[in-house]
Structures are given as structure tokens and as C-alpha cells.
């Protein structure tokens, strides 16, 4: 395993009231890897994403990006008493760091959502263009007075290039929410790419897709990874997708890591098979 991971989670625990959704999770993504996070429904996968991206402040643990701690937490206040995770005292003397999601995106981590969150009043084009806002240098005056025309043009051109890459250019001026489901997922990926990330987090990108679409999506993910020099962490229930396209897999159940390794190792692991027992593959 590489010594310089792009993303590293160390003992991350997220407790909601009495529910420990993520329990002492440690994992890492190395540069250029596609890593999958799997587990049955309610295992805590999306919650783990939310801890990385600043949507939730974890109850305990550290998230490091490119070697620097971006999130640091230990049980505080009421949580001190009711904390039910592990390693309660491990980071007690560290200063907690709790950035807002936009700060984390600016560092170079972009994401998509399990339940698609496109901006519904905007067109396909505007959805991607708006994600470029955080990179814009213009201030509100120069923007209003249209003094930054060169930057505006560049933003529009880059947006069109991203849409072309996803074959979405023909829907440019349609409302984003009028697209079929599968294309909305692709649009969300394009929107995330518009922020020029180094690490891309995909939450069930193939949900609702048929096997052929799933296969195409997998090839596409590999392609953008190469093209933009990305590292990718993804959550997926389609096992064929996970087995075919990921370099390594982490499997969690009830918030806890149960197994990790290459697709071969994980798919033959008894604990993983047990965890998935009774859960159909393409859910």
C-alpha cells in the first residue's frame, strides 16, 4: 500500500443520538485508484461520504487529504457521555477541525449524491456552469458589470467541453430535471468535474441503470480518471460494476469495516457473503 494516499480516514466514527452509523472506520485511497465502498443498506456508506465532505462533523476521528488533516474530531459535550464508538480518547488532545463543505470542495474533493441533487430550475448547461462559480476570480461588481468577459467565455467553453464529453450537449438548454434518470446521474458527474477535483466521490452512480448502461458508465469512469488524473472513491450496489472497475474494495456492515482488499479477496470473503445474504445484488 502506498505511503502517500490522497485520502485517508482514521478511526472515523459518526454517532447520531444512540445510532452509531459509522464505527471506527479507517480506509485510504491512493493516487489514481478506483476504490469501492460496499455494504448492505443502512451500513453507513453515505454517512461516511458525508463525514469526508463536511456535511456532517464526525463524532471522532481524522480525515486526511493529501497528507493534511482536513477534519479532526473527538467526542464533545453530550457525546462525551453517550459515545458508543471505539477509541474515545484517541484524539482528545487534538484541536477539532470542522470545515464547511464548500471549503472541502475547494481543496479538491467533489461528489455526486445518491438521491440526485441537480438544481431544478436550471438548464443542463447552467447546472455545470454554476459549479464553476467557485473557481471564478471575478467579484460581484465585475460580474454584474460584465467586466470579466474573458473569464465568462472560458467558463462557458469549459462547460460545453464537459457536456460534450458526457454526450449531453444536445440537451444543453433543457431543464436538468427533464432528463432521463441515467443522464441526470451523468450530469451530476459532469457538474462535479466542473470544480476540477483531484478526488471524486460517487454515491451509487449506477443506481437505476440497466446492465449495459452500467458497463458503459464503468468504462466512462475509468476514462475520466485517466483523462483528469483523478482518484475515485465510489459506493455501489451493482456487484459486477464493483468487481470489474475497482482496484480495491472496502466492505462495511453496521458502520464497521468487515473486510478489505482486491475484488477477488472481498468477493470470496465469508463475512461479506454473510452480510449480503438475503440482499439481492441489483438493489
Amino acid at each position: 500500500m502506498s505511503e502517500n494516499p490522497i485520502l485517508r480516514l482514521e478511526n472515523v466514527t459518526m454517532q447520531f443520538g444512540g445510532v452509531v452509523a459509522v464505527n471506527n472506520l479507517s480506509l485510504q485511497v491512493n493516487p489514481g485508484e478506483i476504490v469501492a465502498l460496499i455494504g448492505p443498506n443502512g451500513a453507513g456508506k453515505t454517512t461516511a461520504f458525508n463525514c469526508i465532505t463536511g456535511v456532517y462533523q464526525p463524532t471522532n476521528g481524522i480525515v486526511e487529504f493529501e497528507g493534511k488533516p482536513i477534519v479532526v474530531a473527538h467526542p464533545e459535550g453530550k457525546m462525551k457521555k453517550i459515545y458508543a464508538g471505539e477509541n474515545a480518547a484517541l484524539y482528545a488532545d487534538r484541536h477539532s477541525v470542522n470545515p464547511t463543505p464548500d471549503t472541502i470542495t475547494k481543496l479538491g474533493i467533489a461528489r455526486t449524491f445518491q438521491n440526485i441533487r441537480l438544481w431544478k430550475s436550471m438548464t443542463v448547461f447552467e447546472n455545470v456552469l454554476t459549479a464553476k462559480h467557485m473557481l471564478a476570480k471575478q467579484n460581484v461588481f465585475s460580474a454584474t458589470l460584465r467586466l470579466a468577459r474573458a473569464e465568462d467565455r472560458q467558463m462557458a467553453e469549459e462547460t460545453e467541453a464537459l457536456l460534450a464529453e458526457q454526450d449531453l450537449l444536445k440537451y444543453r438548454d433543457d431543464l436538468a430535471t427533464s432528463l432521463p434518470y441515467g443522464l441526470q446521474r451523468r450530469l451530476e458527474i459532469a457538474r462535479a468535474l466542473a470544480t476540477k477535483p483531484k478526488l471524486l466521490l460517487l454515491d451509487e452512480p449506477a443506481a437505476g441503470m440497466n446492465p449495459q448502461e452500467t458497463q458503459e458508465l464503468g468504462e466512462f469512469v475509468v476514462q475520466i480518471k485517466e483523462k483528469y488524473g483523478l482518484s475515485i472513491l465510489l459506493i455501489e450496489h451493482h456487484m459486477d460494476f464493483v468487481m470489474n472497475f475497482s482496484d480495491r474494495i472496502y466492505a462495511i456492515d453496521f458502520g464497521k469495516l468487515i473486510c478489505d482488499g482486491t475484488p477477488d479477496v472481498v468477493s470470496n470473503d465469508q463475512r461479506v457473503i454473510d452480510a449480503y445474504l438475503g440482499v439481492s445484488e441489483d438493489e
Partner: protein
Amino acid sequence: MINKYSVRKESIVGIALLLILLAVMTVIDFFLPSYHIAVMVIKKASVYALVAVSMNLLNGFTGLFSLGQAGFMLLGAYTYAIFSIPVAKRAGVYQYFDGGWIQFSIPEFFSEFLGETIGLNMGIILTLILGGLVAAFFAYLIGLPVLRLKSDYLAIATLGFAEILRAFFQWPNLGPLTNGSNLLKSYPDFKSATGYVVLIGIFIAMIVLLVNSTYGRAFKAIRDDEIAAEAMGINLAKHKRLAFIISSFFAGIGGGMLAMYMGTLQALSFKSTMTYEILLVVVMGGIGSITGSVITSFMYIASMEWLLRGLDSGTFLGIHAPGVFKNGFRMAVVSLIIMVVVLFFSKGIMGDREFSVKGIVKFFDRLFGKKTPKNAGGDGNV
């Protein structure tokens, strides 16, 4: 993708429409006395249009349900009056407060240097902008704590802020500045309705440009889905505060112009009823539609102040029925109209669409049988 030819045609049609508007305004100003009801309606309606659009920027485009508009208007109105009353008249206006603390007038200062026409008007405009800046500064101060609140709580907090401000401005200890609960008057006004229309036209055009800029898109992203906006690197606190400040700036200018229109100023005029009136205009015009706000402002003010006046004073549409058309009947009819509009246009008369020159050009092209290519740089407008 954008059709060069149609862009040029649009600018020509747009400029032509502006020139026609300007010509009509000049004719109105030339032939009608300044106290004529049409002139009054145009002045008041354009002020309401500016305030409604500023409220729409916040409530419609950024999705922040704020009800502080009357408070920010009050700040702008008082700033305008306080800094523009001619020095010679201050002793009379502030008769209970020894002529007040402030003994200079910005418009007067400018008219000394640049003459009665250019200097005075420039001074008026600068003082109005100063009023906007004062309102914006207060928005900056209260923005941080208040904008953390969610929807209804934000509405209550901003409403409370406006009410406190109104009471504060009537405080006798502040009399040498605000004249307490007495009137402020004798401040200068534009000589013509054209002045109102042109100035407000420029301000609204700036809001339109803002809404269609990258910042405007960020505001809409926050309105549509905060979580997605934040995940795409848009700083919620910063952008909400920005929208709040800009909206208050224009509300402040609107307040100053309303004071100008009314001729006398009293804190009592800026009650929460005024905010509700403006909210009504915004909702009826369509939340998220600037042209909707503008059109509704004119329709609302014209019917309230002019067309439906007869309902209160005995004769309406030539029918003389003092028994029915008496005080209060007008409000009943207005309420009825509002209910009908809300029932049949649940998203306001314009929804979130806009009237645009592009739309007008397309309409006439269609009328004369010319085919405009579908999707030619279309932006979903009418």
C-alpha cells in the same frame, strides 16, 4: 451556437423600445402637470418596482424569506432626507431641535459647483446611493446572526428588526438627527417623472445583470438546493449575506425615492404593512420573475391609486352609486382581485419566466411567418 443575426436584431429592437419609452416619458412630463395622477402613479409605481425587484432578489432568487424591506427602506429614506434638506430650511424643519445636528446638504453642495440642473440632480442621486449604502451597512451587520435562521424564523427576525428600527427613529433623543416623531420635509425632488423612470430603470437593469451573472447563478443554486450548492464549493454564509446586502442596498435607494415622492417623511409610514404590500406585488408578479414584479407594481399602484379610486368615492365607470361605492369598497374589490389571481395563477402572473426582447422578437417573427430556429441560444424565456 448563438445566432449573430438575431442578437443584432434584438439589440436594435431593445434600443428602439427604450427610445419609445423615453419619448413617451418626455411627452408625459411636458404636457401633464407634475401633480397629475398619471405622473404620480408612474413615480410611485417605479419606486415600488425597484423595491419589489430588490425583494425578489432575496426571496425569489436566493430563497431567503426575509421581511425586513420596510426597515431598509426607512434607513434609505431617512439618510436621503437628513443629508439633502437645504441648510436654510433646517431651522424650520427641526424647529424643536434647534435646527438639528447636521448643517449641510449634499445636493446643495453639488449645485453650488455644478449648477442647478446637473449639480442638484447629481447630488440627489449621490444622496440616494448613500441611503442605499447605509441600508447595506445595516444588512451587513445583522446579516451574520440573522441569516443562520431558517425560513420562518428569518422572516420573524427581519420583521422585528424593521419594527425596532422604526421605533428607534422616533426616539426623541435622536431628534436632532431624525426629528423624532415629527415630519422631515423640504428636501429636493426630481422635477420630472422621467428622472424616476430612468434612474430606477438603471438600477433594475443592474439587478438583472447581477441575476444573470455567475453570482446570480450561485444565488439560484442556493435557492434550488443548499446542500448541492455547498457541495459545489458555494460558500452559503458568504453568498446569502451578499444577496442580503445587495437587496437591502436597493431597498434603501427605493426608500429614499419613496420619501422623495411623498414629499414629507415620517417613520410611521414604514410599517410592516408596507413590506406585506411589496411581498404581495412580488408574489402576484411571480417569485423569481423580475419583469413580473415590475409589471405588477405598475398594475397594483395604478389600480390602487387611480383606476379603482371611484370605488371609494361614489362614481365608478360612470356609475353613480354612493350607497355601494363608499369608503372601504375599494379594498374589498382589491382583495377579491388578489384572490382570483392567486387562485388562477398559483405562481403569479409570470411564474418564474421573464418578458424579454428576445421573446418579443421571436413572437413577431412567428407572427409574420418567419421561422426562428428552435433552441437558437434560447434561455427558456417567453
